[in-house]
């Protein structure tokens, strides 16, 4: 009973944090002045600007998905499956843009292009608009297919690859066996990138490319036109829902059951032989060009401005760290319970809950922010809306998919018999969770906390819309200072933001690396 009650409470929290605001938005668009009407929807369909925004949003998301897929999967194979030197360091390097607020990457590119052509207008002509958005968002989301490909490659049964190696070389095995096996997972990465690019607000806003999330934010913040903002947000919610259902129905059905072989050989690496040097050089150059150069430029620009940066945004940094810590704790706790629910299928609604979490991740932060404002901005609920609690609720809604899936993946590694043995011995559910499951799944719990921390810290869309007075976070402060702050000050704030993110990211990396080191039987197969 305690098990079902606790899991239902976690689901209820998720419904209140995420589903209710979206439902409220939908109802507000359908019921105006207390009566049912399709007026808002008809207006939306008749407005040519809405179609332009939809075209721009879909074009941007498609191009970003194409680039990240075409580059990320081969890079994931190269860094995750071969014996390329420095592959861990290079993976970490390519992951950095995902860990920081996306607009910081845009600021860094802008700085680099200004440096390359001072006084010229290269940045204005090239970076601001669709090409710049595609470049920045491709850099930001490239780690998703890259990392997911690496994880999926590790879950392919090495004996299936060995069975293929008896017939053909590694190229044939990759094309015929390994890639088809991981394809459903890779397609999921593509769907995820598409949704995240579709909902991205800060980069198109900074690079002045008209897409739905920017329109929705502008209607809300500049004109406080709640109805227009809601109407502009709903098409995105619709597209997100369609793709999430596609993922749930199609990809789940066609997903192959991947195994790790267990004892003996866990993983096979492809020897690169004479390609070693050339490929290392190519990957290192890509890392230098797309990550180190822009961020290095930002760092150089920031020198001498750290005093002013801390004076003007020290409070925001403290807020960021505090809210990120609170958000991570909430996300890890609820994520563990939802992950447990998904893994053990303890409630019949487990698949619906899993789909809901992915849908909320796919929604733009600004849409969740507008939904939360509409639902909670009432005198009766001021205790939530007028305090940082509203920010934490927003983080919970948007990022629960990440922490629940990390925990579910970790819990999948624990044989069910572990908990069953404790149950037979007479332990109740809480005792089993605290004394058996958590000690075995602590790595996943910690990793989910750190992922929750990083994503709460880098959040811009939700916090920008719902933060109460005096509770501004650093990414929001940087965005507001961009209007009148000097480039050096902005650069210094961005570097502080990067440092605040990379310290816990380094910790996460160390944990994952130590976990990986404990795996045995890795082999380079000729």
């Amino acid at each position, binding site marked *: 009973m305690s098990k079902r009650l606790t899991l239902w409470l976690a689901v209820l929290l998720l419904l209140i944090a995420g589903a209710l605001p979206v439902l409220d938005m939908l109802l507000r668009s359908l019921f105006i002045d207390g009566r049912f009407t399709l007026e808002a929807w008809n207006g939306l369909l008749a407005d040519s600007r809405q179609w332009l925004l939809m075209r721009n949003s879909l074009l941007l998301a498609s191009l970003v998905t194409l680039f990240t897929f075409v580059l990320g999967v081969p890079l994931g194979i190269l860094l995750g499956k071969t014996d390329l030197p420095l592959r861990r360091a290079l993976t970490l390097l390519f992951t950095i843009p995902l860990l920081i607020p996306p607009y910081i990457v845009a600021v860094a590119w802008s700085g680099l292009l200004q440096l390359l052509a001072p006084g010229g207008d290269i940045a204005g002509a090239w970076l601001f608009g669709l090409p710049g958005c595609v470049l920045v968002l491709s850099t930001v989301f490239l780690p998703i297919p890259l990392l997911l490909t690496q994880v999926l490659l590790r879950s392919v049964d090495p004996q299936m690859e060995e069975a293929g*190696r008896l017939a*053909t070389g590694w190229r044939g095995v990759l094309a015929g066996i390994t890639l088809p096996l991981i394809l459903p997972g890779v397609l999921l990465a593509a769907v995820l990138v598409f949704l995240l690019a579709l909902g991205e607000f800060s980069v198109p806003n900074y690079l002045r490319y008209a897409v739905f999330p920017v329109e929705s934010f502008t209607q809300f913040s500049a004109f406080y036109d709640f109805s227009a903002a809601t109407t502009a947000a709903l098409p995105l919610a619709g597209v997100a829902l369609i793709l999430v259902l596609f993922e749930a129905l199609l990809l789940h059905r066609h997903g192959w059951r991947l195994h790790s072989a267990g004892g003996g050989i866990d993983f096979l690496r492809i020897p690169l032989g004479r390609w070693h040097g050339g490929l290392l050089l190519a990957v290192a150059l890509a890392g230098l060009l797309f990550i180190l150069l822009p961020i290095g430029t930002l760092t150089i620009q920031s020198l001498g401005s750290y005093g002013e940066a801390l004076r003007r945004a020290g409070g925001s940094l403290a807020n960021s760290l505090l809210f990120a810590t609170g958000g991570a704790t909430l996300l890890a706790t609820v994520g563990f319970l939802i992950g447990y629910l998904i893994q053990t299928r303890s409630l019949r609604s487990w698949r619906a809950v899993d789909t809901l979490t992915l849908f909320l991740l796919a929604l733009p932060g600004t849409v969740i922010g507008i939904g939360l404002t509409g639902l909670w901005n009432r005198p009766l609920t001021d205790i939530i809306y007028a305090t940082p609690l509203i920010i934490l609720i927003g983080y919970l809604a948007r990022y629960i998919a990440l922490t629940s899936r990390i925990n579910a993946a970790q819990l999948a590694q624990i044989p069910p018999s572990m908990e069953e043995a404790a149950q037979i011995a007479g332990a109740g559910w809480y005792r089993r969770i605290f004394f058996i499951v958590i000690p075995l799944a602590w790595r996943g719990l910690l990793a989910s906390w750190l992922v929750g921390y990083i994503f709460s810290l880098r959040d811009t869309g939700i916090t920008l819309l719902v933060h109460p007075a005096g509770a501004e976070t650093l990414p929001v402060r940087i965005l507001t200072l961009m209007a009148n702050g000097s480039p050096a000050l902005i650069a210094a704030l961005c570097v502080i933001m990067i440092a605040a993110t990379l310290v816990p990211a380094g910790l996460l990396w160390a944990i994952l690396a130590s976990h990986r080191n404990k795996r045995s039987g890795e082999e380079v197969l000729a």
Partner: protein
Amino acid sequence: MKVVELKAVSKSLDQVPVLQAIDLAVSAGERLVIFGPSGCGKTTLLRLVAGFLAPDVGSLVIGGELAARDGRSLIPPERRNIGMVFQNLALWPHFSVRGNIEFGLKARGLPRPEREQRVAAMLKLVGLENLARRKPGELSGGQQQRVALARALAPHPDLVLLDEPLSSLDPALNDRMRKEIVRLQETLGFTLIHVTHNREEADEIATRLIGMEQGSIVERPLPANA
């Protein structure tokens, strides 16, 4: 004629010696069974022969050609003309039964008519003609075993390696599959190395039986009635 020869082969995994100065020769048409407890090095020996590992010391000759010597693999697995049935079968779940059998034939560049003829012959040989379109996940344990055997045999290998493929079967099915393996070997005439920890299974399949203990080979006579 010797199909496989191991000369003074030693191999360590994670600094633990697994095989120690192994000398072994397998003649054409032989059904050699390597019998021994878990962890004695049987699977490592098979993986060396298949080309997934190279001996740290010693040499390996396959079909008269030097295949590996002193830490270096000289012939890759796909050029050794070996078929193998893995302990967990390792059937590819995204291919049908036909696709699993045909993969190795495609990789060897066989023309389509010959591929189809060989797949049909293999399906008939293992009695799965009606299940060609099924995915491995839709088959029973025994049917999966037969697909794995058909996949290993389709390219007409000189040597077939069986890595405890019957260990997970119930006694009745295990007994049927033993007879099936012997029948297939006698029909097609390939050389077979079969590893197992089941003495009864070893006695029934072997024309020659050797034991393994802690990485070394111990000759074991077959029972008189085998």
